[in-house]
């Protein structure tokens, strides 16, 4: 039994995932939710990175899950489930964006001129950031807003690479751009975010003082 060749769609799948796939194929539609559950959050965040609107992003997430269910037989490798789902989310979100803007001709891949390299200006050390700080509502608001202030293309790349941890190739595929474009946008996104958040995370005199005290 175990020596049977595996169907393509199940290569590298955990036994748990294979059981889920089998149940979905057998008509237990609700099992699809379990299959995508680990990525539900990512789907929303990616949609929101394009739409910057909670209600729209949520509707796109719902649409994405339904579409993915309908097209499950097109998924070639269960190992790429995450990037496959995110690609559907990106397409759905872009479609909605076009609709919302009512300018179907606006290119979504419009370049913003190849601006000269921005040299970092915020040069203060950052403090260590304990997880309690990250749990604070205020900190999360800062992080969310900084991300929203990024130009859309930078934001999407940053979200896929540094928040969702997709590989460069996967991010390129999901967004329909080249790997070198992903690299360039990611670099700029990181520098810009760093600049933007430096006032929030830089060492304050209080931190420096306590560091001095702990040394003595």
């Amino acid at each position, binding site marked *: 039994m175990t020596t049977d060749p595996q169907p393509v769609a199940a290569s590298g799948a955990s036994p748990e995932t294979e059981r889920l796939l089998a149940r979905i194929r057998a008509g237990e539609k609700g099992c699809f939710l379990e299959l995508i559950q680990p990525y539900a959050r990512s789907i*929303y965040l990616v949609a929101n990175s394009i739409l910057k609107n909670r209600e729209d992003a949520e509707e796109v997430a719902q649409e994405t899950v339904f579409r993915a269910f309908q097209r499950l037989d097109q998924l070639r490798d269960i190992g790429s489930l995450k990037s496959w789902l995110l690609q559907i989310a990106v397409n759905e979100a872009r479609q909605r964006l076009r609709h919302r803007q009512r300018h179907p001709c606006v290119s979504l891949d419009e370049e913003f001129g190849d601006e000269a390299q921005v040299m970092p200006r915020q040069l203060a050390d950052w403090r260590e950031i304990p997880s309690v700080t990250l749990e604070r509502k205020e900190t999360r608001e800062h992080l969310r807003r900084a991300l929203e202030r990024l130009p859309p293309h930078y934001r999407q790349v940053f979200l896929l690479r540094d928040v969702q941890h997709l590989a460069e190739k996967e991010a390129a595929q999901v967004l329909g751009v080249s790997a070198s474009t992903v690299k360039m946008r990611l670099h700029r996104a990181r520098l810009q975010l760093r600049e933007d958040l430096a006032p929030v995370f830089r060492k304050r005199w209080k931190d420096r003082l306590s560091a001095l005290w702990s040394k003595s």
Partner: protein
Amino acid sequence: MISCEHVIHELSSYIDGDSDPELRQAIERHLRGCRRCSVVLDSTRKLLLIYGDEDVLEVPAGYFERLRTSFLARVSR
């Protein structure tokens, strides 16, 4: 000695381990002598740690439940 501009330009690749070994060494030499670039590197790494923690960006309350309800309603039609 490579310039600060060069180091900053390569920063992202350096963090991702994509720079070729020779350049990598040149960057490391530069960093030992340049506090400014060291701070930029260190803070960028901290930035990535912060955002890399999956739960730091929130989804709206009730999102998962609404996703579930909408899916079940649509597939049972």
